[in-house]
């Protein structure tokens, strides 16, 4: 018998525990995996529970207080007066404007993101996939403010976009669009169209990535099976691809929708002087000092997102999860 085999024979059937506290801990965690899970989850749950949900709850509480109109002090008594103020026509305008913008941005993001995500999920391999991630993430590396100001220059009347339109002899198209009510304005940088373009640009990665992840999970043979059963590419898209990608689309739209609902910087830099929810919250809690109304405004996106998710669930968006 060889010496190597002899060595193996000499080893005990059960190896001794590693020395010290590490050995004790790793054996204990192996026997009780839930203990490890508990210890790992404790800090984030504490953070989420106390700091995050706690402050959200404090915010909710604030919205049920009201402000004394003479002294400007907060009356710490339960009242629905602040919500009554929220329903004034001017405030409803702000809510409607923001929700419409968020919905338009979300829809546009879906349309723009789908082909990119589809290509990345189904065709890109190896270095092309790496390039895709890089291209999608790259804009996130630079400051959000720098990008928004860059867009202000691009969209300005003297900016490169106007120049491009004039070079292509398409200035009539741009002017025609800008003369339209609501979406138009003096230039793209002071119109809702400009706000919309920048919102779509800034939030697009948050739509592409979950969509790509969802499309990647759709097995290729389901597409083949659909085609095999006689479905044209269009029918396969509506009956197989879209329903299976829906959880990803919903996840992406939660990002684009809620980020648009809450943003106050983009509409301040690019767009008209009309307020969005984020700006209203900012001005109410800052200059106006009306914390309860600011809190009530902040509740609006939460309620809208809740309704949106409830509807998405009812439509079966999460059935394929």
């Amino acid at each position, binding site marked *: 018998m060889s010496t190597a085999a002899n060595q193996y024979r000499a080893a005990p059937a059960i190896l001794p525990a590693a020395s010290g506290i590490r050995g004790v801990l790793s054996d204990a965690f192996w026997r009780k995996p839930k203990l490890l899970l508990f210890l790992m989850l404790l800090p984030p749950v504490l953070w989420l529970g106390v700091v995050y949900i706690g402050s959200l709850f404090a915010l909710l509480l604030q919205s049920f207080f009201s402000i004394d109109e003479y002294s400007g002090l907060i009356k710490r008594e339960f009242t629905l007066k602040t919500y009554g103020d929220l329903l004034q026509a001017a405030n409803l305008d702000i809510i409607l404007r923001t929700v419409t913008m968020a919905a338009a941005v979300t829809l546009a993001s879906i349309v723009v993101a789908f082909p990119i995500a589809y290509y990345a999920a189904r065709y890109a391999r190896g270095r092309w996939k790496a390039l895709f991630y890089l291209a999608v993430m790259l804009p996130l590396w630079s400051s959000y403010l720098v990008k928004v100001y860059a867009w202000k220059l691009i969209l300005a009347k003297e900016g490169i976009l106007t120049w491009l339109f004039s070079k292509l002899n398409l200035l009539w198209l741009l002017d025609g669009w800008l003369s339209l009510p609501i979406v138009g304005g003096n230039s793209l940088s002071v119109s809702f169209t400009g706000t919309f373009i920048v919102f779509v640009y800034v939030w697009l990665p948050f739509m592409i990535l979950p969509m790509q992840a969802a499309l990647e999970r759709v*097995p290729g*043979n*389901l597409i*083949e*099976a*659909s*085609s*095999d*059963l*006689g*479905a*044209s*590419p269009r*029918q396969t898209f509506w*009956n*197989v691809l879209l*329903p*299976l990608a829906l959880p990803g689309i919903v996840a992406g739209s939660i990002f684009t929708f809620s980020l648009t609902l809450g943003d106050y910087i983009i509409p301040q830099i690019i767009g008209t002087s009309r307020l969005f929810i984020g700006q209203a919250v900012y001005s109410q809690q800052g200059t106006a000092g009306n914390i309860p109304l600011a809190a009530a405004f902040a509740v609006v996106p939460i309620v809208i997102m809740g309704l949106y998710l409830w509807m998405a669930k009812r439509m*079966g968006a999460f*059935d*394929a999860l």
Partner: protein
Amino acid sequence: MTSAVSFQKVSRHFGTVRAVDAVDLDIVPGEFFAMLGPSGSGKTTCLRLIAGFEQPTAGSISIFGERAEGVPPYRRNVNTVFQDYALFPHLNILDNVAYGLMVKGVGKAERHKAAEDALALVRLPGYGERRPGQLSGGQRQRVALARALVNQPKVLLLDEPLGALDLKLRENMQEELKSLQKALGITFIFVTHDQGEALSMADRVAVFNDGKIMQVGTPQDIYERPATRFVADFVGSSNVLPPDFVQRYSGQRRWGSLRPEAIRVGKATRGDGVSARLVSANYLGATTRLALDADGLRLHAVVPAGTKLPEEGEALVLTFNRDQLHLMDEPA
């Protein structure tokens, strides 16, 4: 008569890989046809060429006399039962089965009726409301079959349909598929790497290797009269005999094959024959498979259960009837 499927010099190359290489093939309408071969032999690519998922790089394919090159899968009246079933996870069983009719614009009541009938055909009546995830592998397999058959295809393609099932279920499904095919009269083409499955189910078998067809014939042809060493070795694990050996017993210098069950194993003291030693014995239940060493040539013999087995290393004499020795076409 027009063939159900006809290949003329069909090739499908992926770069330098010749997945299918100049294959000629004619499949008769209404037959149960098996494509048998090891993995990577081109049999699945052939199936995908018929389904339309792949296009030939050269040659022509026709389905019931109509040219199929450039025709997308959704315009072919050919349906596939996929290896892993490919059931739609977001639809219930009834809608899965009715899918083909749905995309053709058949009304809801009518297509659900047809789907119920198809489910009854595969012995899963009343399973329509369930989701694919709630079914066992064997049940999913039947649903995949119903989903294909409900369209009444001209040709049904089955890609390793029984590969994921356990032995008992596989044997049941083999019988069911066979009787279903007889009852419906649809041309079935199925791909498998399991020679037992191919031999027991098919009317005719094509043996694939390296993108080419080695032999086409009835199971008896393939098993008893293999044309090449590859076929003899792959189908039924025949003993492949070198030309020198064959010359001694038949007088012709050709490669030969001898099935394991044709070899009789006796004690060394008894008469003339091929002297050999027992290397190992594998107990298989109904039979025992013996590995023998005949002067450097490795032979296999199968003896029925209950036979008294020789010892390992024991000297033996092997005998066989000369007419059991099959001479292959392959030159020496």
